């Protein structure tokens, strides 16, 4: 009877959409293993957690809530201990979490603390008899590994799931909600001093946006970044970037798309001055239509793009933006 436990993420005052994809993957596993599906959310009591509970509750036998003031601002220690409290209550055989920036820190802390098997950034999970099989891109995405965590003696087995890897679940009846008592243990070794929000572009959040317009090193200099902003604003899109752009500080890292940045879940991705390295493409959901503008007609990006323009963005993009504005009236 153990069960599959999906731990959603509440951040920035809302349920991260990737939580619903993790729930869908969890539901499929629960069916294959013939085990119940549990959910869990962690945060401080009130506003965001309440609305997230509503958005997340569908399809679980039980949705566990850990509400505690120590979970208001994220720290790995508090998150891993809260997750451990849920695991103690639910006793799952598998735990699934969306592969967010936070999860990359606290989930391995949890796995190491309870000494269990973990595979991160999976693009698919499945049952193979009693074993858990996960597919995970390696070498930036040029190679895919098939990993297995056996049922015994390891429990629970933990995976984090890349966003854009699975469809969201259909509607299902809402779960019974159970609040778990949680005694936060003090962490005298790590103190959160402050959270500093970055100066980010206006427009939709990169992880939710239907359209993302991204610029790469081919922009040449930060002074040209306004071209990307203009295209994004004409399309009502979120702004993305490649790693060298973030590393050089042209824009904040929160815009970075790729293996070590955001996984997006867009319908349209416009890549400008981006060569198309596997590590960059790793962040683009497979269902996204990619349009690329690049001076090099042989650039790798054109093996992923559906539509390509071989040309200098300085000539191509202003006309593109103007035409978009006309079309959108």
């Amino acid at each position, binding site marked *: 009877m153990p069960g599959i436990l999906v731990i959603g993420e509440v*951040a*920035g005052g809302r349920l991260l959409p990737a939580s619903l994809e993790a729930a869908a993957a969890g539901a499929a596993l629960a069916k294959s293993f013939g085990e119940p599906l549990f959910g869990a959310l962690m945060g401080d009591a009130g506003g965001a957690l309440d609305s997230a509970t509503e958005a997340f509750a569908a399809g679980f036998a039980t949705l566990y809530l850990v509400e505690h003031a120590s979970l208001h601002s*994220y720290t*790995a220690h508090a998150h891993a201990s809260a997750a451990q409290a849920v695991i103690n209550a639910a006793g799952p055989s598998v735990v699934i979490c969306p592969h967010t*920036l936070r999860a*990359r*820190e606290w989930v*391995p802390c949890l*796995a*190491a*603390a309870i000494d*269990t098997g*973990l595979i*991160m*950034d999976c693009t698919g999970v499945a049952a193979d008899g009693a074993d858990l099989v996960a597919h995970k891109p*390696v070498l*930036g995405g*040029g*190679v*895919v*590994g*098939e990993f297995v*965590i056996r049922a015994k003696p*390891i429990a629970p087995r933990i995976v984090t799931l890349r966003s854009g890897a699975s469809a969201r679940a259909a509607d299902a009846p809402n779960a019974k909600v159970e609040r778990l008592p949680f005694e936060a243990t003090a962490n*005298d*070794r*790590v103190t*959160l001093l402050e*959270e500093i929000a970055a100066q980010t572009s206006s427009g939709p959040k990169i992880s939710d946006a239907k*359209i993302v317009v991204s610029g790469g090193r081919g922009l040449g200099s930060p002074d040209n970044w306004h071209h990307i902003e203009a295209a994004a604003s004409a399309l009502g899109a979120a702004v993305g970037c490649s790693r060298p752009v*973030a590393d050089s500080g042209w824009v904040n*890292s*929160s815009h970075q798309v790729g293996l*070590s940045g955001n996984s997006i879940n867009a319908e349209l991705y416009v890549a400008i001055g981006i060569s198309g*390295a*596997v*590590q960059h*493409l790793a962040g683009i959901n497979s269902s996204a*239509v990619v*349009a690329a*503008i690049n001076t090099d*007609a042989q650039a*790798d990006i*054109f*093996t*992923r793009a*559906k*539509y*390509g*323009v071989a*040309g*200098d963005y*300085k*000539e*191509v993009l*202003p*006309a*593109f933006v103007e*035409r978009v504005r006309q*079309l959108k009236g």
Partner: protein
Amino acid sequence: MNIVVTVKQVADPNIPPSHIQLDDEAKRIISPFGIPPVMNGYDANALEEALRLREAHQGKITAITLGEESSRDVLKRAVAMGANTAVLLSDPEWLHADSASVGQLIAAGIKKSGPFDLVLCGRQASDTDGGQVLHWIARYLDIPVITPVVKIDAVEGDTITVQRLTDDGVQRLKVKLPALLGVSSEMNEPRLPSMRGLMGAGRAMIAAWKKKDIPVELPAPRVELRKLAIQIRDSKAEMIPGKTGAEQGAALADKLREKGLI
């Protein structure tokens, strides 16, 4: 301040997808001829940061790796960049260890190498993209881990203040030493080894420890790799024609409109 930096020799992450080769039996990626393995990029960032910390606070830097005999090369490079000492953990029995066991072994190697204040690791290795060995090292050393770190603000007494990347900015955290940090590429631009460094590195003393030196009982692997498969992308984009860039730009907008995408 005594700093340990973990470094890993990896297949060059910029191998063109068409040149990737796999050793199916050993389930590993082979570096194709002419594209030699490199130091994992994030580890180079970690080592660079260690060098800067040593410039400011004195002390000693130990580079440590676990891998095949050929991983000596990555240690030589670390010494050439400026590490004081280097440790190679290599034993045929360890080559298929999972992340947890690799972490346990490296932690044992760090303990054996002497007292330390700070462990710097790259946030992940670019071959396995695993991102968890650092957490296992921290667990076996019983020290806190913070990742991904983009800036070190200050070292004062037995604390370090760092900036950790979040979804919409950074967190500033004050951490008691000893601690382990997962270093991200935003932190710095790694230096190239100097000529003198390269020449000295050839003669560098590298401690090589095997199973008999690191008496750790490894549990059965928690995670097993069944197989690797190359991902081929061979589709071709529909190229938008036009006499000028401007014509192409307008035509691209029309195309996306026609397909209902904008």
